[in-house]
């Protein structure tokens, strides 16, 4: 089959649409997360989501979102919004929560294998690496993704200047009257939502790549917050489209293919940045 044949199929169209939206959201948030030294929060929270999914599967919930979403949001608030006051800080807290949730999730799936799913390791593998779940999206999931992405992008545009102020210098922003706690809380909630969404796309292990790579690539070449944000969004969308189409044509796993595209762009931008600096 040729590329145009693929593009006629509704599941490929759905995958492209959801892929682009999720990649866009992840890259926008990625800029502030990378700059605040929270690159690994994507990884950590996606493991939490994995643990919650395992619990939902064991409990036999048909719609696991009902459990996964609140649990992930809770952990995101714990990590980001508690932030500076917490006893266990930053990277250590992320590592602890992430490993803990992964272990508990896997343990539960082994102890109480969900009915009708004999192949546990296959199940685990596709949750971690995404597998083909983006090609089997239901209509409800597509609409949910669209709605949430619109909310995230709107938030980013409306709060752009506040996000900048809080990211660049939280204590100055707080001292001049910005409600930094509120912004941190909202950012935490949105990150959790984006992560749960993008698990469908690339799987929990590769979510960090969606968050980190576009922002880092953009920072090689661009020097203002505005251009970095715009460039990261463009890179992320282009890589998502390329990755999904390549995966469809070559029969490779969707998530890994998108990430490889992101790595290629990062390498290219690093080279260009290096050449320009000389």
């Amino acid at each position, binding site marked *: 089959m040729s590329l145009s044949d693929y593009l006629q199929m509704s599941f490929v169209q759905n995958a492209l649409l959801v892929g682009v939206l999720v990649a866009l959201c992840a890259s926008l948030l990625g800029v502030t997360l990378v*700059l*605040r*030294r929270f690159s690994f929060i994507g990884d950590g929270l996606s493991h939490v989501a994995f643990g919650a999914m395992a619990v939902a599967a064991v409990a036999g919930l048909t719609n696991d979102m009902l459990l996964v979403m609140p649990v992930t949001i809770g952990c995101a608030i714990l990590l980001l919004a508690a932030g500076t006051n917490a006893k266990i800080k930053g990277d250590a807290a992320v590592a602890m929560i992430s490993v803990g949730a992964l272990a508990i999730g896997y343990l539960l799936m082994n102890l109480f294998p969900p009915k009708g799913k004999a192949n546990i390791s296959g199940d685990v593998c596709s949750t971690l690496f995404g597998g083909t779940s983006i090609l089997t999206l239901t209509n409800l999931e597509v609409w949910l993704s669209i709605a949430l992405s619109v909310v995230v992008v709107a938030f980013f*545009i*409306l*709060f*752009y*200047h*506040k996000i*900048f*102020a809080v*990211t*660049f*210098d939280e*204590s*100055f*922003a*707080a*001292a*001049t*009257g*910005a409600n930094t706690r509120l912004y941190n809380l909202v950012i935490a909630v949105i990150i959790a939502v984006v992560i749960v969404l993008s698990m469908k796309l690339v799987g929990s292990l590769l979510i960090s790549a969606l968050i980190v790579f576009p922002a880092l690539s953009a*920072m090689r070449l*661009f*020097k*203002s*917050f*505005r251009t*970095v944000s715009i460039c990261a969004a463009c890179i992320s969308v282009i890589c998502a489209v390329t990755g999904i189409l390549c995966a469809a044509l070559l029969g490779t796993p969707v998530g890994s293919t998108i990430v490889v595209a992101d790595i290629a762009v990062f390498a290219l931008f690093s080279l260009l940045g290096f050449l320009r600096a000389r």
Partner: protein
Amino acid sequence: MALLSCQDLSLGYEGKPILEHISFEVNAGDYLCIVGENGSGKSTLMKTILGLIRPMKGRVETGEGLRQNEIGYLPQQTLVQRDFPASVYEIVLSGCQGRQGLRPFYTKADKALAWENIRRMEIEPLAQRCYRELSGGQQQRVLLARALCATRKLLLLDEPVAGLDPRVTTEMYQLIANLNRKDGITVVMISHDLEAALRYATHILHIGARIYCGSVTDYLSSETGAPWLMKGGRKA
């Protein structure tokens, strides 16, 4: 009423006091230097004045129509800022954030104010440059311009010359002195550099085992100041 007054403040973290019974006032036009040994609580005091930390006891009050969010603050540089991709203009403009409330975008007046302060700090040629590529002294000018966007009356500076070379340090002190004398902006500054504090400031707040607050001339002959000055090998 004074521009800023602290009454019987006690500061500390997690229930352990660092500083107790601090009372002082800052009047419009003053240039107050906060001095004291490392760990004596200078930065904690400044953060309390800004409302970032709640005092364990006592009160911080602003007067003469100064609102809590109208204090310009020059914090110490953080790790995050060293490789932050942002233009000088973006950073200076973010000083107008406090007055923005829930409005999503900056107004023309905000932008004009940002440019005015960029010119005032003589960094206009750098406006579109990237912050991380500037020298230490240029970065401090950018942050000072941002602080000026947040206030017209009171600047709080936390070791503004840390890490700068001697020539740039003198320039920075001169710049701050000009803001104080010509523009009438009240300055409260944390400093390690006692000599400069004595040269430029009008008032000294010495914190530590002994607490002193008063004019520079009285400080030189005070029980708190005199031994400290002698210990440093400086002549009072």
